[in-house]
């Protein structure tokens, strides 16, 4: 047996790769810089003598990161059906255009006469988004969805403040992303959770009772539509009217906008604030955890509170407004993740009005296709059709010892990225599957076949094999408890 063990741990194309710190040799470098002749420093400080960085050459750096990359699953490489994350195809055209010097090599503080094209790009994207959501004003400044939530909730807070109203409560639906309550809490609000009913939608009776009970203490209600159970909140109009009747605002998390782009305008249904996630619906790459971009759309009433800088347009000239009387202020150093904006605009122009509508339709079609084919193999907590993502659970398997985690790890073994697991929290053992519109029918069939196989295995005598999975990956199941108990967060010599 032992003579079969690879001396360096390599297995075929799967290559082990130590940290660069462990490969360092004094005197190596991956850059050639001109000689410096400076002898007398004008820093007013002693010169730093040691930093602690590794020393490696360029070929070593390239090999290191290429090997690391080969340990990753990616949407370019395979299906990535993470619910509410919208892992769709990321067109390379978008990467090409964002690297044009006229976009990439711009400084945010250049004279405005030298950045007219960039400001026009921002203005154009704002207009496209405004048309898609049916709301009058947009800011592109927020750096990600959660940053957009913060911007939106701060705008609401400021509006209430201007009216002289002190409201302390934010209602949040129980299937909301964790960022919703965390955002409202950051803004100083007390959170009251609104339960969802047996159909996966906001429990209207409970919602009405809460609004009646707390009335003018409520600053806002935050929910996601379509929600994270894969359902459209059909009572949205009633919810809006009810909130407005007590002077509260309606925040809609647009994380799942991919299901309704070009099909529904949330602004026409009474929403006061919503954020988009350009890295979801509009296909800017997730990059292993960002950068994102979280534009916020608001009603006419809230427009004046949007953060600065804002792009203005008059007489064919674009300008940046850097202060005004009502704004919540600046929310980051400069005016947002421009690189994401260019990519998103390229994506939207490629699809156009007709294509974007098809995006939503195909996304919903694909999710329902999966749901239809898996509904007899896995427990479906909410019956009927779904929107862009379908929700299954491990009920019926768990009782025999196979959990959602095991199904996820089995999917990894069989070549897929798992779905979102254990979210939303409103059902036990959630498996939230969002295939997106960019998966072909063959690819969906492959996923369905694999899921059916896993369901069969889970009920078979060999089900214990699932507990061992994954087996063929760069790493097997990882000891997360150990990581948290004895945190090692950096390399130490």
């Amino acid at each position: 047996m032992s003579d079969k063990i690879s001396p360096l741990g390599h297995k075929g194309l799967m290559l082990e790769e130590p940290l660069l710190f462990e490969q360092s040799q004094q005197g190596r470098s991956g850059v050639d810089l001109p000689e410096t002749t400076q002898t007398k420093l004008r820093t007013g400080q002693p010169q730093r003598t040691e930093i602690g960085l590794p020393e490696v050459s360029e070929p070593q750096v390239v090999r290191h990161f290429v090997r690391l990359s080969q340990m990753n699953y990616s949407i370019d490489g395979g299906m990535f059906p993470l619910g509410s994350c919208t892992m769709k195809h990321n067109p390379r055209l978008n990467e090409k255009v964002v690297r044009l010097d006229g976009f990439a090599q711009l400084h945010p503080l250049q004279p405005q006469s030298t950045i007219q094209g960039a400001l026009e790009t921002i203005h154009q994207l704002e207009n496209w988004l405004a048309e898609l959501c049916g709301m009058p004003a947009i800011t592109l400044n927020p750096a990600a969805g959660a940053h957009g939530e913060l911007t939106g909730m701060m705008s609401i807070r400021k509006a209430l403040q201007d009216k002289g109203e002190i409201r302390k409560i934010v209602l949040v639906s129980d299937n909301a992303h964790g960022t919703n309550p965390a955002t409202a809490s950051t803004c100083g609000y007390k959170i009251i959770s609104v339960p969802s009913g047996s159909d996966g939608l906001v429990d209207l009776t409970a919602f009405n009772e809460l609004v009646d009970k707390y009335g003018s203490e409520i600053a806002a209600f935050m929910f996601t539509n379509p929600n994270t159970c894969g359902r459209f909140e059909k009572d949205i109009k009633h919810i809006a009217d009810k909130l407005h009747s007590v002077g509260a605002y309606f925040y809609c998390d647009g994380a799942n906008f991919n299901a309704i782009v070009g099909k529904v305008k949330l602004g026409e249904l009474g929403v006061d604030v919503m954020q988009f996630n350009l890295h979801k619906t509009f296909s800017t790459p997730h990059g292993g955890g960002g950068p994102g971009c979280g534009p916020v759309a608001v009603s006419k009433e809230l427009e004046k509170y949007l953060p600065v800088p804002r792009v203005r347009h008059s007489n064919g000239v674009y300008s940046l407004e850097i202060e005004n009387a009502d704004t919540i202020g600046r929310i980051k150093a400069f005016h947002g993740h421009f690189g994401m904006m260019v990519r998103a605009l390229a994506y939207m122009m490629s699809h156009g009005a007709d294509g974007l509508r098809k995006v939503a339709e195909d996304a919903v079609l694909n999710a329902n296709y999966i749901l239809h084919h898996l509904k007899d193999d896995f427990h479906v907590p909410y019956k009927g059709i779904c929107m862009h993502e379908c929700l299954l659970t491990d009920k019926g398997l768990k009782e025999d010892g196979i959990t959602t985690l095991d199904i996820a790890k089995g999917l990894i073994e069989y070549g897929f990225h798992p779905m979102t697991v254990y979210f939303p929290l409103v059902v036990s053992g959630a498996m939230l599957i969002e295939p997106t519109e960019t998966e072909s029918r063959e690819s969906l069939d492959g996923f369905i076949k694999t899921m059916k196989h896993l369901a069969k295995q889970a009920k078979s005598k060999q089900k214990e094999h699932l507990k061992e999975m994954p087996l063929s990956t760069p790493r097997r199941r990882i000891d997360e408890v150990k990581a948290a108990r004895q945190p090692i967060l950096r390399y130490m010599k």
Partner: protein
Amino acid sequence: MRYLPHTNADRKAMLEEIGVTHIDDLFAGVPSGHLLNKLVDLPNHQGEIEVERALSALASKNLSAADAPFFIGAGCYRHHIPATVDYIIQRSEFLTAYTPYQPEIAQGTLAYLFEFQSYVAELTGMDVANASMYDGATSLAEAALMAQRITKRQTITIAPGLHPHYEQTLKTYLSTSGADIIVADKPSSDSAAFIIQSPDFFGTPHSLQDYRKACDDTGAKLIHVFTEVLSLGLLPPPKEADIVVGEGQSIGVGLGFGGPHLGLFACKKEYTRQMPGRLCGQTTDADGKISYVLTLSTREQHIRREKATSNICTNVGLCALAFTVHMSLLGEQGMKNLALLNHQKACDLADKLEEINDVKVINTSFFNEFTVQLPIDDAEDVVNKLAEKGILAGYPLHDGKLLITATETTTENDVTALTTALREVLA
């Protein structure tokens, strides 16, 4: 449409299998009055050629730093990015991966985050660093909130010379709690934190030693903030601080019209569990192999919801990768050499500018950026006139002051072009 695999025949067949006839049957959960019955008012789809042409036309309306002698800094710096960096960050496996929630198939992302955290900790002289924040300004705001949590105090004191955009961002973040922000050269007895930028907005580096003592006396947490991470290759590490935050854009990320950039966040070990954002940790897998995983997530919103240390979710992972690749190429000596080269270029530029009549460099000390006093009041007008001549001369301040930067990208020709044009404009 090139991004959509289904043919109409596919769609029809799939609908049939599901047991419905029309796509809108699958939108039956949406009340019919809420469904749009026509296309939105936007142009229809376009091919690659058309999209590329339209966006190129927009890009060409800008004056790129690549086409002009360039001297702007003020929190965003132009540096050379080695070709390897863009090649690595465009690899599909990095570019199109998600947050590494499934560690068995995300060791690539996790391993570089571990290296990133290690580099940031080494650079800042801190014990731990997180996996990145949106940018330097939001990092600072989160550091202030963290200091408030640790000290259970509200007031934030900032030393003069903080980047105005950082101060404004801090103000926005603190507006919800109504905490006071005081500008002073030392913390007061009720300060949760004392914030010092170095090099400061005007370019002057500061030593932390005196501030450390003042913070020890009052119980305030000392927050060091920087906008130019490269300065840490030449200046002493801010190891006296409790929290070090700043902008990492200079290494690997680029200008990009202000974003995405790279928020760095590091602190002393005892505050680890009060940190915002993601942390990657080392552990082992079922076979005992060294592995990496996101850890201490009980601080975070997806676990703790309203009790989380921050609402941050997505950070800037790919920018952290760019930083890590560039920093790996530089290494110990390269980082120091690059920092020294920047300082030398700035010294040369300062000397050349002082040769112009009535132009004075205000700083007695600086790294790669300094403030000059022009002999006229309206520095913005000077900058605009120089822009008309195709020179991006710096960032204008009040009272005829100009904030000006040199980096390794600055050439002798650039400096000559600037000084010649500045003489003409001032004449």
